[in-house]
């Protein structure tokens, strides 16, 4: 029984650690220093295109990887397949565009650094040169 409890605790810790290893980054044009989890979700679902300070924002996603999986689970509550289906429903009805998706953390940092209003996520240990880190409230 004791071993089982330790196993469960270890599992929970591993999941939390994975979620904690993400950082949300933004182009320096984004005025806010932090964003609420609800607003972050709305930005990535395309229903929010500006923040409270008036900054225009647009999401940037990773194609795959642990940061991507953790971000979906922690902030969007959707599987990768469900998220893709959601974006396609916007695209095929004309009510939204497919967001930018990139293959690596380095590509995301580089794109966010040079694109006005871009918001993305990368692994916590990724060097984030030229971007600002957004706190998630």
């Amino acid at each position, binding site marked *: 029984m004791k071993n089982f409890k330790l196993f469960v605790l270890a599992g929970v810790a591993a999941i939390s650690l994975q979620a904690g290893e993400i950082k949300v980054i933004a182009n320096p044009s984004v005025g806010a220093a932090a964003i609420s989890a*609800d607003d972050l979700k*709305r930005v990535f679902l395309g*229903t*929010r*295109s*500006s923040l409270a300070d008036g900054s*225009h924002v647009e999401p940037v996603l990773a194609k795959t990887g642990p940061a991507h999986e953790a971000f979906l689970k922690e902030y969007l*509550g*959707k*599987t990768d*397949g*469900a998220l*893709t*289906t959601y974006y*396609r*429903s916007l*695209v*095929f*009805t*004309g*009510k939204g*565009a*497919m967001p930018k998706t990139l293959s690596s953390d380095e590509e995301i940092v580089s794109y966010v650094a040079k694109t006005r*209003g871009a918001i993305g996520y990368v692994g916590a240990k990724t060097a984030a040169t030229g971007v600002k880190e957004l706190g998630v409230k």
Partner: protein
Amino acid sequence: MKNRIVQSILIASALCTAPVVLQAQLGQFSLEGHTFQLHGFASQGYAVSNQNNFLTMQTSKGSFAFTDGGLNLSTSLTDKFRVGAQGYLRNVGQLGGGRLSLDWAFGDYRFADWFGIRAGKVKTPLGLFNDTQDAESLHTWALLPQSVYPLDLRSSTIAHVGGDIYGQLALRKAGSIDYTVYGGARPNDRRSGYYFNTQDTGVPIRTFTGKIVGSDVRWNTPVAGLMAGMSFLDEMDHINGTYIAAGNAPYLLDSSPLHMTSAYVDYSRGKLRVNGEFRRNKKVERFNLFGNQSALNFSDKGWFVTGAYRVTRQLELGAYHSHYRVDVPQTADPAGNHLFDTTLTARYDLTRWWNVKVEGHFMDGHGDLYSAHGFYLRSNPTGIGPTTNLLVIRTGFYF
């Protein structure tokens, strides 16, 4: 028959190979400082039934006449202003006739997240799937529940030429509400069920016009994955036709208005997705022939419940029950006022942009022949049996 099969295969091949090429080259490109997105979808199906021909296909012999596809181009002109358009064609039995039509084309100005305007030809939000019903990749099913989303009547509600006001209201801990209010002119598709049905019953339509107004409100509840909504649509139909039995006398038919009400709920958690919808249609039809007017109350209702589970990354299994009943006095044909359908589906995603679905339908009833719902006299000239078992295999591509 052979020509139709060859034609279907050629159309499907063209539609299916185009996305593969386009995906690599044209998914996104820049022109004059603007980034354009090009997306599309195409599907090809095969349907075979034990008896009764369904959706104007010769399903009792097995039919490949089940093809559709769409291609769209869009761009953001500013941070707040988007424009785009989509062409769509379908060849489902006699439905659509394989002709390209403008599916949607509009400008969308979002003043704020809670307030935006769309103007042009806009897809109509009505229930869970009305505006997305053509894109099969978005759904588990090869055929959506026909009680609420009849493929043959699709074009009567699919879009409107007019405008929308829309937005999302954040409710903090209570979730958020997406709303759309719209109005405009209904589409007029001469290769759709209403035209075929009236031709088959001796009262062919010449013109079918009308205005619609409606609204859709959906609540993204604080419970993760749970959404509930309601839609209302009022359609003022105006039909000109001829009554063949009365020497091709012209008639007018007005319904003022047709009230459509829909209530729906959707829940997804991890690999599981369940949803359901109830739809009620009600109208008073005023029929004018030789200057004499008569009125007829008409109503029908449909509902469905579905459940789907993603077993592996590639494989999804699902089932639904779909229930349609038209409120007409019971006739000598007990199968003539309803259509119930229990369906089992397996969807397999071969890649991120290609799927195959295998689906079995077990149908009881065939609906009212004067208010067709999938079964037509033109494709069933010797009569329609009370039950139909239908196998549908459908593959879809998208990018």
